[in-house]
């Protein structure tokens, strides 16, 4: 029974990721006074790519062929770790949040390799930029995660969220800082404004898009879908760690239904904040990105320090 719920949760996670992307697109269009495409547009795009012919360069090695599958599989595995609707699922108990960071690193590694594999200028440039951003984002994310882990005395996401749900509502300064740090990292890692612009193919500015220029057909479907899942993972992490209320602790239908409603409401609120932030910010120069991520690291560090200084003893 628990495994069935677990499986359903992962399927829901993977299936809902394009919906979240469509919703963000819709909000984004509204914020710019444009006609919005249907919220189901990402599904149509994925389906369209799936039917198209897959073209692969002559000198592509096996890395280029396997990378999309690895990236997608890792994204699904990572989605299994994050509690979406129910906390007490076995797959969330099995792995902790450091494994999650490791999964992200694994996917990024293969994506960067695939970008380099073809040998085009754009691929290499994109890979180099992606690794630059990643090498700075990872410590910031780990610092924010460690703040959570130290406060809750566990690195397991499900256990930490359960502890949070059982205690009375507490505002921790360290969580405020850690949450902000994680939000900045999420913005950088999912390639949103101000670090990267997901809607552009301008060679001077693109980071993520440059790496996947050579992909087409069902390879591209998998990569795009994995990117949407990653976006969803970050959003759910932010929503469920820092506002855990409403998550189902038992596996009764009522609790699960309530959990779905709660997580939807939280994600809607979170994306509104994201889109508003994107509306007022301009894209940074690429060389400002280290400053941005340095600030994220500082916030994570401050979260840890305020936990040690203010909250213990």
């Amino acid at each position, binding site marked *: 029974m628990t495994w069935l719920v677990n499986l359903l949760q992962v399927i829901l996670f993977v299936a809902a990721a394009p919906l979240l992307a469509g919703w963000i697109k819709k909000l984004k269009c509204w914020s710019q006074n444009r006609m919005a495409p249907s919220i189901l547009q990402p599904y149509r795009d994925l389906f369209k790519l799936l039917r198209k012919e897959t073209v692969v360069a002559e000198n592509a090695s096996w890395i280029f062929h396997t990378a999309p599958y690895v990236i997608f599989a890792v994204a699904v595995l990572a989605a299994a770790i994050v509690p979406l609707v129910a906390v007490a699922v076995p797959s969330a108990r099995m792995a902790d949040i450091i494994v999650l960071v490791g999964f992200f690193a694994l996917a990024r590694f293969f994506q960067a390799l695939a970008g380099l594999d073809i040998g085009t200028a754009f691929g290499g440039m994109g890979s180099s930029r992606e690794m630059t951003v990643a090498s700075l984002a990872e410590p910031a994310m780990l610092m924010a995660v460690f703040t959570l882990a130290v406060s809750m005395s566990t690195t397991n996401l499900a256990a930490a969220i359960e502890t949070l749900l059982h205690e009375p509502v507490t505002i921790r300064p360290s969580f405020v800082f850690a949450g902000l740090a994680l939000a900045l990292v999420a913005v950088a890692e999912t390639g949103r404004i101000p670090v990267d612009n997901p809607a552009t193919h301008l060679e001077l500015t693109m980071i993520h898009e440059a790496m996947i220029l050579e992909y087409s057909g069902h390879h591209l479907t998998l990569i795009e879908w994995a990117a949407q899942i990653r976006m969803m993972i970050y959003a759910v992490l932010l929503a469920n760690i820092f506002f855990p209320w409403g998550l189902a602790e038992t596996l009764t239908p009522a609790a699960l239904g309530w959990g779905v409603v709660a997580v939807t409401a939280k994600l809607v609120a979170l994306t509104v904040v994201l889109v508003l932030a994107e509306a007022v910010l301009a894209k940074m120069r690429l060389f400002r990105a280290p400053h941005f991520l340095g600030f994220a690291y*500082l916030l994570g560090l401050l979260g840890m320090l305020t936990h040690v200084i203010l909250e213990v003893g």
Partner: protein
Amino acid sequence: MTTLESLYGQAVLLFAALVLFVSFVMLAQSRVTTLVNLFALQGLLLALTTALVAVMQNSPHLLVSASLTLGLKVILIPLLLHWLILRMGLHRTTDEVNRPLQLLLGAASLVVFSYWITLPVVQLSALETRNIIAASTATLLLGMLLMISHRQALSHVVGFMAMENALFFSAVVATHGMPLVVELGVAFDVMVAAVIFGVFFFQIRESIDSLDVDRLSRLTETEESES
């Protein structure tokens, strides 16, 4: 987690942490106008913290201190500084720090340092706010770092005022606040200091045509070829 249990305790901790955070943001800030606004924000957070501590510890005289902070450091001095900035045409001046990231990481290590040196004090104290002592000491050191790292005379004044803020902050959290006489005296000192600084600005600008104090260390009047 003793302080975290009551709602007041949580709010005090949150505001104290935000005071420290504003100090960090001030360090990285390069526009003087924003710097003054951040200083006002820090004063506001400080006044709120003080008022909450007053309610939590049932010591109403701290409310007087809080309102004094609010009137002086949130409204009067920032207004005065803004007026000075406008008068001297400094509102577009930037005060870039050379290596902002290294500066901020250095500042974070100062926080660790102040935690280490205040540890014995914290262990002796029985106050509910004893955990914040380290944060207030760190705010003091960060104010000093602001004075060291920035070049514009105006940033130095803001750094100085931020240090005064921090001293008041530590008085509130480490003891039950300074005696009112002392506090009034300090408040007027700060006020007078702000006025005198204003006069000094005009003097400095008249002699070196800028408020960049690095140029004060030059001995010759002739313009060196800067390349």
